[in-house]
């Protein structure tokens, strides 16, 4: 599961932490909505991993004798598009693409955001400078910022990843800074200083691990935004270019055939909606599950 993959990376690495990881997971699946989200994410992950094995057609293969077949047609259970390409194949490969784009952009955004947040939170002198820069990024509407970046770099999926990463940085930086500000006031940070630990050691080994919970939640929620923005940018023609099987691009292509072949827009639309919803509810669930003050009935 993508959210778990991220969680795994952050806290599950140590075997010692496993008990806490399992405990969080248990609290998470107790939340019905989060469980639903997890299942959706799991399905998407399976689709992405086993993409070539579960489809009968190449997503790019055109068959002009079978165009605009509706849902439930023989051999194409989700129908075909205006070029006779199998919608199910395109959907499955689209799942792979949106996951890759989502994870990469979130990871890059997190690296930038965590670095800035740690520096701003720990060093008072850098705080003003970094946070004003972050405010500057915040002042731009996100999608506009992404479009601006793509306009500068050119349209391609790689540039979409870069744009969405940059757009993820300010939110992450703020959240991390907030946690660092509260963690660095803790006495164990002073105690580590009194033992002669360097700033680098204190920041990376003692403060960062204490900020993981909000970062995990942010990363999960951010996955939803990333996937949605990738689709939006592709829909606008700024991201994936045809014939790449990308959900947003699929909707854009289906626009002209709304009356004759509505499934061309509805199917990828539902996929985007479900996945974005799933990441959001899992993020919500994680927030509750990671909060030690929340009482989840046993």
């Amino acid at each position: 599961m993508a959210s778990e993959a991220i969680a795994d990376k952050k806290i599950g690495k140590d075997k010692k932490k496993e008990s806490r990881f399992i405990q969080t997971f248990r609290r998470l699946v107790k939340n019905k909505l989060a469980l639903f989200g997890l299942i959706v994410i799991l399905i998407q992950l399976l689709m992405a991993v086993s993409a070539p094995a579960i489809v009968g057609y190449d997503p790019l293969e055109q068959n002009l004798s079978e165009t605009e077949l509706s849902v439930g047609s023989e051999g194409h259970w989700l129908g075909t598009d205006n070029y006779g390409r199998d919608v199910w194949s395109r959907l499955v490969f689209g799942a792979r693409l949106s996951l890759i784009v989502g994870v990469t952009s979130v990871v890059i955004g997190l690296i930038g955001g965590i670095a800035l947040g740690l520096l701003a939170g720990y060093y008072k002198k850098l705080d003003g400078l970094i946070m004003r820069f972050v405010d500057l990024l915040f002042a731009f509407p996100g999608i506009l910022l992404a479009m601006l970046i793509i306009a500068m770099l050119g349209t391609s999926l790689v540039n979409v990843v870069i744009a969405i990463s940059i757009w993820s940085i300010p939110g992450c930086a703020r959240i991390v800074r907030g946690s660092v500000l509260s963690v660095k006031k803790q006495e164990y940070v002073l105690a580590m200083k009194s033992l002669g630990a360097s700033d680098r050691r204190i920041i990376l080994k003692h403060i960062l691990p204490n900020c993981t919970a909000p970062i995990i939640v942010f990363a999960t929620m951010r996955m939803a935004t990333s996937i949605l923005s990738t689709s939006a940018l592709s829909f606008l023609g700024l991201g994936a270019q045809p014939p790449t099987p990308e959900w947003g691009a699929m909707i854009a292509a289906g626009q002209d055939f709304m009356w004759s072949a509505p499934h061309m827009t509805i199917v990828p639309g539902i996929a985007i909606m479900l996945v974005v919803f799933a990441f959001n509810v899992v993020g919500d669930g994680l927030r509750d599950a990671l909060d030690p003050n929340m009482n989840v009935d046993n």
Partner: protein
Amino acid sequence: MEQLLQVNDLVTQFRTAEGNLSAVRGVSFSVNKGETLCVVGESGCGKSITSLSIMGLLPSNGAITGGSILFNDEELTTKTEDQLRRLRGNQISMIFQEPMTALNPVFTIGYQLREPLMIHRNMTKNEASRKAVELLEEVGIPDPVKKLKQFPHELSGGMRQRVMIAMALACKPSLLIADEPTTALDVTIQAEILDLIDDLKRDMDMGVVFVTHDMGVVAEIADRVMVMYAGEVVEIGNVEDIFNDPQHPYTKGLLASVPNIDEESKTFDAIPGTLPNLNEKIDGCRFHPRCPFATDKCREQSPPAFSVGETHQSKCWLQEVNNNVESANPS
């Protein structure tokens, strides 16, 4: 005895919206090897800031603006952050008041104990783990191998304070600063921790600066006592001098406000008034508004430190009167 720490006329100030405020105003004292100096006084009188000044761990708006701190004949106030970092945990260590919050909750005891060893001694993880077991044994923690794998929340307060002590003493420092290490513990555990610190001090021939506001603790552990009030040292002397022959009215007040098991009376004599704010301007002796013996001179001029005995000093105009009386009637 060899002198370990010599603090001369230390002034520590904080930058605030109301200007620079002095939290420590010209404090001088020394600590010898194998000696425990207790620093006592009310909350907010500058005890902790004095110890943080020695460690070089003042909050970012605080700075040492005057005086000198000599440690093993090396000046600490002019050292760079990196040089100080090498001293901290290695030659000067500190233990803190709250064992509940002074250990990082996300790491095991073993991980945290290995930190000072890996920082200062460049030990590998395995060497450090072996040493950590020894350290835990030294501070009297049963079943140390198992404890290494436990998290701080799995230990009791007393155990955590022992772990803190083990961390602080891992590199055999020559000076230990203990900032109210027993305040958060209950009385029986407190006694055990005091004994432990005392034993370790003797074993390692350390100097100890012990910050506390508990006179009972002072009586138990101190060799010498320094009484602080509003950022100044008002009286300093051997523990016997301070308890048997207190000179400064503030010291007398502190001693009178401690319950005495031998006395019938069930009320304590509190010192009237409260500690002045850092920004309050007080002419003359800083204690005069609360002092029952204050004279006009006290209100106008700040008293110097008068010697009472060889090792005993009191910062009070009353000494001048006593000295005059003594010189008038040589006995």
